[in-house]
Every structure is written in structure tokens, then in C-alpha cells.
């Protein structure tokens, strides 16, 4: 929407103001929620620099500088878990985005509306499952004695003790769970493409494949970039359910399944230290923020209008 500078005298400005007022009112509930749940808690970050004790309270607890950050950066596993977190997330972003575009384009080619609805629902469904449920579904496949996979293979592979399979299993589970949601978002913007583009392509005698390549994909780019940027912001977070529940928290698999979130959970479970967990949360947020800014800068350089800000 183009912003028109309000001019008190003109009739048009009055209409605009009326319009903006309604729009502002409409966004108000969301804004309040955002303020309450996303901005207000920012002050809680101060816990990262405190030795918090219940009886002394927030103000009474001692300031300890960067002491709460030490345990994470001193540990020999900090590298492994940071690497796992970033690599898995890069694979997740690439696989779900590419997969979603392909599926959306295929959906678009299907002419039967009933079939489209059916596929949409089937693909969307896993997105609503909690990872606790997904973990059991995966377990049904991978159980050593009764698992579907072992019965099919006729072998007794102890999946939860073999590291080499997990770098594939985890992205697969993530893909299965999340691709449906992204497909629908992209499919929606695909339907929104003005039909005149297709007509023009048809007049020029473009094949179906050429239409996809030269009309659909370029017009989808802003949407894909936006989804990608949002995902980049979370690149420093491992989905706890995916990395903790799906591998059944098997110790032997840690070198390939451990991410920052699961690592910190384990370290601090015994200590229950508010300050130390806040410190890691702050670290993840700051790195995530920097990555979004960089990714946005790069986007801006190559296609100005696709950037988020």
C-alpha cells in the first residue's frame, strides 16, 4: 500500500485518515500482544547477567557480568552443537523451500479441484502434529524388534544406536512435517498471479515448462525470499521436539543430533540456573538477529524489492 502524506485540508486526506484509523484499530489487538509477549520480556534479558536467587529477588540478586556465558563457551561441545544447529537448519531451509516450490507448482498443474484439496490436506496434516506424536510415529518405523523398516528390510538394525543414519532421518522428518505448510503459502501466492501473464505467455507460444520457468518462478521469488528470511532468523535454534524426542534422546546419537537447545537443556537440568539459561537464549537471539540483518542486506543488493526492511 502506498503511503500518502496526510494533508489536513484535502478531502482525500480525510478519507485516508479514516481508513488508517480503522486499519490501526484492526491491528491493535495484535500490536498489544506483540508488545506484551515480544517486547516486554526483553527486560528479562538482564537475568543473563545476574546470579539470580529467589529470596533476593530480581533487584537484590548480584550482577555477575559475563559469568553466566562461560559454561557454554568453555565447553568442548560448543563447536559440535553450534555446527549441528546451523548445518541442519541450512538443510531444512533449502529442502523445505525447494520442496514447497516444486509441490506448489505441481498442485497448480492439477485441474481437478477436489484432488487439489485432497493433496493440500494430506500434506498440511503433519504440520499440526506435535513432535511427541511424531516421535512415536518414527519409533514405529525404527523400533528394532517390531519396527516397520526392520520388517521390510528383514534385518535387525538398531537405528537408535547407529549414528550414520541420523543426518538423513532428521531432515526427512523435518521435511515431512513442514513442507506442507510452506507449500500452501507458496501455492496461495501462485494462484494470486494475474492471469494476464499467462495469457501473454500463451500468445507468445510458450510451452508449459517455459511458463513455469519464466512466469511463475520469477513472480514467486519475493515470497520465497521472505519465507527464507524468516527461517534464517531461527537458524540458531534447534527445534527441541525434533532433536530431543525424535531420536529418543539416545546418548550414542548426540554427536549427530545434539543442537544448542538440547545441549543447554541437559547441562542445566541439574543446575536449574535461570541466569545461565537466559545467557544462552540471549546469545542465540543476538546471532539470529545479526544473521537476519546480513541476509537482508544481501537480498537488498540483488533484488531491492524483495528485502524485508
Amino acid at each position, binding site marked *: 500500500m502506498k503511503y500518502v502524506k496526510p494533508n489536513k485540508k484535502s478531502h482525500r486526506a480525510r478519507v485516508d485518515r479514516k481508513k488508517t484509523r480503522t486499519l490501526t484499530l484492526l491491528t491493535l489487538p495484535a500490536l498489544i500482544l506483540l508488545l506484551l*509477549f515480544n517486547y516486554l520480556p526483553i527486560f528479562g534479558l538482564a537475568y543473563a547477567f545476574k546470579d539470580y536467587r*529467589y529470596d533476593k529477588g530480581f533487584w537484590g540478586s548480584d550482577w555477575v557480568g559475563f559469568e553466566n556465558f562461560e559454561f557454554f563457551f568453555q565447553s568442548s561441545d560448543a563447536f559440535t552443537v553450534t555446527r549441528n544447529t546451523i548445518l541442519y537448519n541450512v538443510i531444512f531451509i533449502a529442502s523445505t523451500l525447494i520442496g514447497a516450490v516444486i509441490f506448489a507448482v505441481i498442485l497448480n498443474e492439477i485441474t481437478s479441484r477436489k484432488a487439489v484439496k485432497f493433496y493440500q490436506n494430506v500434506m498440511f496434516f503433519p504440520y499440526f502434529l506435535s513432535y511427541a506424536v511424531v516421535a512415536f510415529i518414527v519409533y514405529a518405523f525404527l523400533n528394532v524388534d517390531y519396527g516397520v523398516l526392520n520388517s521390510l528390510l528383514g534385518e535387525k538394525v538398531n537405528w537408535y544406536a547407529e549414528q550414520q543414519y541420523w543426518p538423513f532421518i532428521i531432515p526427512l522428518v523435518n521435511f515431512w512435517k513442514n513442507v506442507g505448510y510452506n507449500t500452501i503459502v507458496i501455492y496461495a501466492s501462485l494462484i494470486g498471479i494475474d492471469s494476464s501473464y499467462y495469457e501473454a505467455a500463451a500468445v507468445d507460444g510458450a510451452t508449459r515448462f517455459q511458463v513455469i520457468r519464466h512466469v511463475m518462478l520469477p513472480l514467486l521469488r519475493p515470497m520465497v525470499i521472505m519465507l527464507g528470511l524468516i527461517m534464517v532468523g531461527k537458524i540458531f535454534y534447534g527445534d527441541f521436539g525434533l532433536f530431543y524426542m525424535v531420536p529418543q534422546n539416545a*546418548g550414542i546419537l*548426540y554427536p549427530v543430533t545434539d543442537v544448542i537447545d538440547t545441549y543447554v537443556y541437559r547441562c542445566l537440568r541439574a543446575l536449574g540456573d535461570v541466569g*545461565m539459561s537466559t545467557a544462552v537464549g540471549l546469545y542465540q537471539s543476538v546471532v*539470529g538477529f545479526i544473521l537476519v540483518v546480513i541476509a537482508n542486506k544481501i537480498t537488498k543488493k540483488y533484488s531491492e524489492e524483495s528485502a524485508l526492511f
Partner: protein
Amino acid sequence: MKKRTKRLVAGALTAVSIMGLLGGCGTGGNSSEGGSGSGSSDEDIVLKWYIRFDDQEDTQKVEDALNEIVKEKIGCTVDLMNIPRATYNDKMSVIIGGREECDIIFTGSGYADFWGNATKGAFLPLNDLLEEYGKETYDAIPEDIWKGVMIDGEIYGVINYQIEAKTNGFTIPEAIIEEFNIDVDSLTSLEDIEPYLAEIHEKYPDMVAITVNHMDTMPMIGYDEIGTMNSPGAVMIGDDSLTVVNQYETQEWRDYVDLMRKWYEAGYIQTDIATATNASELQMAGKIAVGFGNVKPGGEEQESIAWGRPVVQKQITEGRVLPSMVSATMNCISSTSQHPEKAMELLNLVNTDPEVYNLLCYGIEGEHYNKTGDNRIELVENSGYQPNVDWAFGNQFNAYLKGDQPDDVWEQTIALNESSEVSPLLGFAFDQEPVQNQIAQCQSIVDQYQKSIVTGSVDPDQYIPEFLDKLEQAGADDIIAEKQKQLDEWKASNE
């Protein structure tokens, strides 16, 4: 930010839903909101007691009956705030962390993190309160045992007195004993079962020949652990010099692991034991031949239910009073309580008045249970109140006997408590603050290796050296040195 926020939102929502839930509980007519205002008389005081049991249909009924007695005896009323078992720890960390006003909190080393919360000031020190309002409760429990919940000489929890001694042994279904002619009396060590396991495995290859409870292996092989379970640094039982060693470097542990590995490779142990969570289902389905773990007086009756068939238990280790057993379950007074004196009076009542205690445990006579003897009851099946957590409310030795429990089960248990050797570490509370970075890192490494190694799932020759190496990198030596230092200081101040 997003994840943090999500957590906070989740926390806030949980808090709101708990309040909603509790609001529901509190509408019994006798509990008035805001009863904790200052200057009000005893009658208006409503003590909030957070306790861990699953929602029961008749909790309100029992609470009303309870309040009739409580009101008469100590003049105030109680609001039972039960939180289901599965979510207790998570919800309590929100409630304690949020400094919610409440009076009594059920806790223990495994519930609502007793040690962590006590050292962070969530609970009140109780020495004076016990002296003034809880003398009877205090006197019912041996002084040595009270040491197990002390920090710097102050008691922080009212122990729910029960079995405090740990004994290990076998649990075997009668049918298996008959079929394989197991001479139960001849079993005096873990190895003694081996020939039978071979026979069982040969006859029933699909059956799990043995499940071993690996929750705390160390006391069984002769080490008392200090601080958090499985954190490096333990003292050998019987070592009066109290020398702290790394328990994972000891020969005893290595021998134990080798035995487990042998059994694992022979197929006696479940292939996926390192991740399996279906032990109780397998047990119920008769797919486990032998169990090894904690045994206790009256345990056969209890275990027969869990196994779905009559079982026999055989104790193989001497009883030992361990810090972890003593601090297993207790009730603390929250530091947010406005009425700590009343809260202690209530705890004293629950711990000394069998009527109050049994009402909490089993509900109302004639409705939730029937008396079959002077001191013996039978629970009404599918009644509206069966929290099944006698050990969460108070002194278990006040409880009515159930089913086939021997008449003298409590006398036996008390005798076992009193005859068992008391760990010399009782009363020593390890302050982990100076080495908390190392503890945090070691915890993650222990999680990674300990279970796989101790269950025999991996080759010890490869994994034990790797495990030890990683522990060393993570600062296990610092932890052990710190434990030694504090232990020496404690010992010196006690002499």
C-alpha cells in the same frame, strides 16, 4: 527471541491455566479468596498445598472432610492444589520461579528440584518451626536421618518418613522360579543368576531374560555419590578417610559394565535397552523373566501388581541409608508463605494424626475404602479418590495396611531403617556454585555415555576411555577436587 518468547508465553499460559484449575478446586465454599490477608484471624487462613497426584473426581469431597478435622484441630483450612504427576516438575518450576504465594510444596531430590530450590532460597529453614510447632514429627524420625535434608545445619524439608534404606535384589515371577528350578536362597550376587539366564534365553529367545535398574548403580557396587546422581566424584563405602574418587575410573564399575556387556552380547538384555521406555509394559505382558533393582519389606505385594503375576523378591545387598533416599520425598514451606507457623502445624498434624493422614491417602471410609480389620483396609475399585501416593503426604508408617501386606510391614521397614548402615555423607550438602560450569558440562557428557555404557549396549573398551577423556576435558577433576575440599571442611567442622 522468538523461542524465548514462546517459552514465556507458554509459561504465562500454564500459570493462567493452573490458576483456572485451582480456582475450580477452591470453590468449595469453605475456602475464601484472599484469605491470606494480614490481620485476619486463623479461621480465614487457607493454606495452599501443592502436591503431586493426578486429578481425582472426589478431591473436593476429601478436602471438605479434611477441613472439618483441620479446622477443629488447628483452626485453619487447607486448599489441596494437586498437579498431575507428568507435569509436576515443569509446573512447579513456573510456580516457584514466579514466586507465587503458597504455603506448602511437595518436593524431593527428584520432584520440584529440592536441592536447587532450597539453595536458591525458595524454601524456609525449618529448625525453629519444627522445634515450636512440629516437635512430635521431629521426634518420630531419627536424628541422623534429618541430617539428610540439612543445608548448613538448617533443615529445609519435613521428611515423609518411609523406607530410607536402599537394598538391591531380584524380583522373579513364581512361575519362572518353578519352571527353571531357581534356588532363590542361593542367589547372593548379581552373577549368581547367570546360569539361569542362559537357560531362560535358550528356551524363550523372544523373552527379555533380565532387566536391570540402572538408575543408581553406584551404591550397589559400593560407592556413595556426592551431590547430583551420576556427577563425577564419589566416596567408597567403608572408606573412613572420605576420599573422593571418580567412580567411573574404578575397577568395580568396570567389572559391572563388563558383566552387562557380556549379558547384552549373549542376548539376555533388550537390544534397544538404551532408549527403551516400555519396561513396565513388557513386564506386565510377561515378557521379562527376571528383574533386578530395589527391594523392600512388603515389596512383593506391590510388585506382584506391577508384574501382573505373583513374584518373589530376594535381597542381595545390605541396607544402606543414602542421602538420595532420605531426600527423596518431603514437604517444604515456601518462602512466599504468609503463615509459616500454621503451615508447620498442618504438617505436624498430617504426620502424627493417622486419621488425617489416611484420609489424604485413601479418602473417606465406606466410600473410597472399606475396613477389613483393625488397621487393614481394602480400596473400593474405581472409586473417585485414589491418588496412590502415600509417600507424598507424610509419615508412611501411619498408613493403613492394604491387601496382603504383612501385619508388621512398617515394623519391618523401621527395623530395616534402623539397622542399616548410615552413609557417612548424610548431612553433607555439596555447594555446586564454585564448579557449576564444570558440572553443567559433565552432566551433558554423562547423559551421552553413561546409559549406553552401563546397559552394555556399546563396547566398553572403546567407549569408557572416550567417556573418561571427555569428562576430564569438561573439568571432572575440578569437581572432584572441590567435593574433596568441601567434604574435608565439613568433616573438620563436625569433629
